[in-house]
């Protein structure tokens, strides 16, 4: 019984939150990786694209809520996601036409593109705050929990509860679905293959008749989809505040780099590595030892490796360690 309690504790506080946060990071890191491998620059504006996607979902959710059109028990935001995705794609394409296209035609170095993307990041952030304001925006509706702690306790008779929030379940399912579709697209379709060819060797791809503008277009469409879904899921599960998406760029970049920049599988692995290490290192293990060890061995302290204040630092420490030991990242990057 004690072991079961201990396992429930780990599931409730580490596994499920880690899986959710990891999925959100993985989707974000995928977006960065795809832009990096096809367009050859680090897109710092990706966090704000996610924020833009989340904002579109929020505005649309409010619109549909006011007409009382919903898909109870799921949040309305999931229903309006396709329209929000379209808006985000449109925004990405407009930015590309107005900004990135110019530098692409100039054949600018990737560092110039990177700085341009920082400019786009600030502009987008400002635009978003102009539209929805800087404050907290709550757009969650529907049933809050798939599984409530109290229900779980009643069913199993355990001391520890297990909760599964609706948003956590939706995040995990939607991420898995999106990743499967993405990999199918990249590996099985002709357009996907031409994208991979373009990212592998641009000159050769151009010689074999691949239309570069089409590849760029598809890249932004994929980026828009990933950004909007990741942003909306993050906002639904945690809370939406434009400012927090600026901070989100950092763990997402570490995820992409840890996994191996430019490698989609690496981005997913990187997302989970970052998410789980943030949770595992800042968790206090007192209770788990209490369940797994005999009473006389249980220590007095909290058994917390690092205070939660240092959560954000962990992704950087991992980044530094990975870059020192394996500079290419866990998976060798730069090829789709």
């Amino acid at each position, binding site marked *: 019984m004690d072991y079961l309690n201990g396992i429930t504790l780990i599931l409730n506080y580490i596994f499920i*939150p880690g899986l959710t946060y990891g999925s959100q990071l993985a989707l974000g890191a995928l977006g960065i990786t795809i832009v990096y491998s096809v367009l050859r620059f680090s897109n710092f504006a990706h966090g704000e694209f996610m924020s833009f996607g989340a904002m579109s979902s929020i505005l649309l959710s409010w619109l549909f809520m006011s007409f009382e059109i919903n898909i109870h028990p799921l949040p309305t935001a999931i229903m309006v996601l396709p329209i929000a995705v379209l808006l985000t794609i449109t925004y990405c394409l407009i930015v590309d036409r107005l900004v990135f296209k110019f530098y692409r035609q100039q054949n600018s170095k990737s560092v110039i593109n990177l700085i341009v993307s920082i400019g786009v990041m600030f502009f987008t952030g400002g635009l978003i705050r102009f539209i929805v304001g800087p404050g907290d925006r709550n757009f969650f509706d529907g049933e809050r929990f798939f599984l409530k702690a109290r229900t779980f306790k009643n069913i199993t008779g355990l001391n520890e*509860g297990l909760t599964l*929030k609706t948003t956590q379940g939706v995040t995990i399912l939607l991420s898995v679905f999106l990743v499967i579709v993405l990999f199918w697209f990249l590996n099985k379709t002709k357009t996907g293959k031409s994208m991979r060819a373009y990212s592998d060797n641009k000159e050769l791809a151009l010689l074999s008749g691949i239309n570069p503008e089409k590849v760029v277009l598809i890249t932004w469409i994929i980026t828009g989809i990933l950004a909007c879904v990741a942003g909306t899921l993050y906002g639904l599960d945690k809370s939406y*505040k434009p400012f927090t998406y600026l901070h989100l760029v950092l763990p997402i970049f570490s995820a992409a780099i840890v996994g191996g920049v430019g490698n989609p599988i690496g981005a997913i692995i990187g997302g989970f590595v970052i998410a789980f290490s943030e*949770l595992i290192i800042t*968790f*206090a293990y007192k209770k788990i030892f209490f369940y797994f060890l005999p009473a006389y061995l249980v220590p007095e302290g909290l058994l*917390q490796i690092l205070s*939660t*204040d240092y959560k954000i630092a962990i992704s950087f420490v991992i980044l530094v360690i990975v870059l020192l030991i394996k500079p290419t990242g866990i998976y060798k990057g730069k090829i789709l």
Partner: protein
Amino acid sequence: MKKTLVSLMLSMFLVFPTYADNVKIGIILGFTGPIESLAPVMAKSAEMAINEVNKSGNFTHGKINTVRADSTCVDAAAAQAAAERLITAEKVNAIMGADCSGVTTAVLKNVAMPNGIVMISPSATSPALSTEPDNGLFFRTAPSDARQGEVIADLLMEKGFKTAALSHTNNDYGKGLAASIQKNFTSKGGKITITASHEDGKADYSAEVAALAQAGGDILIVAGYLDQGGKGIIQASLDADAFNKFFLPDGMIGDALPKAIGPDLNGSIGSVPGTDSPGAAQYSELAKKAGFKSGPYGPESYDAAALIMLAMEKSKSTKSNVFKKSIMDVANAPGEKIFPGELGKALKLIKSGKDIDYVGATALELVGSGESSGSFAEILIDNQKTKRVGYR
């Protein structure tokens, strides 16, 4: 061209004679930032006291004007710039503010002291401010958190909570209050299982809550802000079923919180400066007449503004360095007791040479270097509303 400009400027001085007699009071509060939902009521309360004096016509130094400025509650640089503007550009005679402890300390140290301007804060509660050197310029109508810590420890003990986890916002206010709660609760035989800080303005507090949950405890004390991390901590605790009872100190009290969290918060308790003296009710009545609902730190703001004006009258001067000496005098006994709505009468009494004892909306009694001795209201969240259920 130069000549025209000079003559133009000169003529401006002729057209607009300087109102040397007019008095200006600066109101510097966090209209944006973590307590933005509280600041408007606080400012309106202070302005209500000033309007009352203006209407009475008994103020020797003429009409009193007010200027508002934004302290942001958290950004010391912005608050200092705002205070600097009040003093140098607006030429205020005194400042009602600032609000949060960190910015108040910064404004006091770097702006009010060098310029010799009196500051009366309605809500800065950090114990550190009691010993901050102030040249006799700083006062507060809110009690120090050292006192609130005592009250919180008593309340928890009485309600039968023997162990508690403590999460505080990572600033002067949070740290000061947490230290005071911990000291008092431990000395009364309780046990704080963990003291962990949280940063404001983050999207996700589940890692913080995971650590708190492992330490356990009968109740979670959240010494934070209701519009910020405090709300996030409570939401995440409820989501993970880590705690279901919360203690809410003054920064967490406001109707916005139970509204945002929902029925799960019912049954949680809290404390906020307040009193059952008739002054509080009279203040609420005045506020209703002025067209707003009284809120946390509204009474303190009313009293802070009132003290400034009464001291000016008493010392027959609008100069900070002169009237600062009269503030303790008008606030404390002996003298005729003055309640909200009686400011006109108080001014008349002072003019006729009589002593007054300003009781105001908070049963004000200044102790030590000029801070409220502090009475607290006990809060119960019931039916998604904050209710005052007792006083101590």
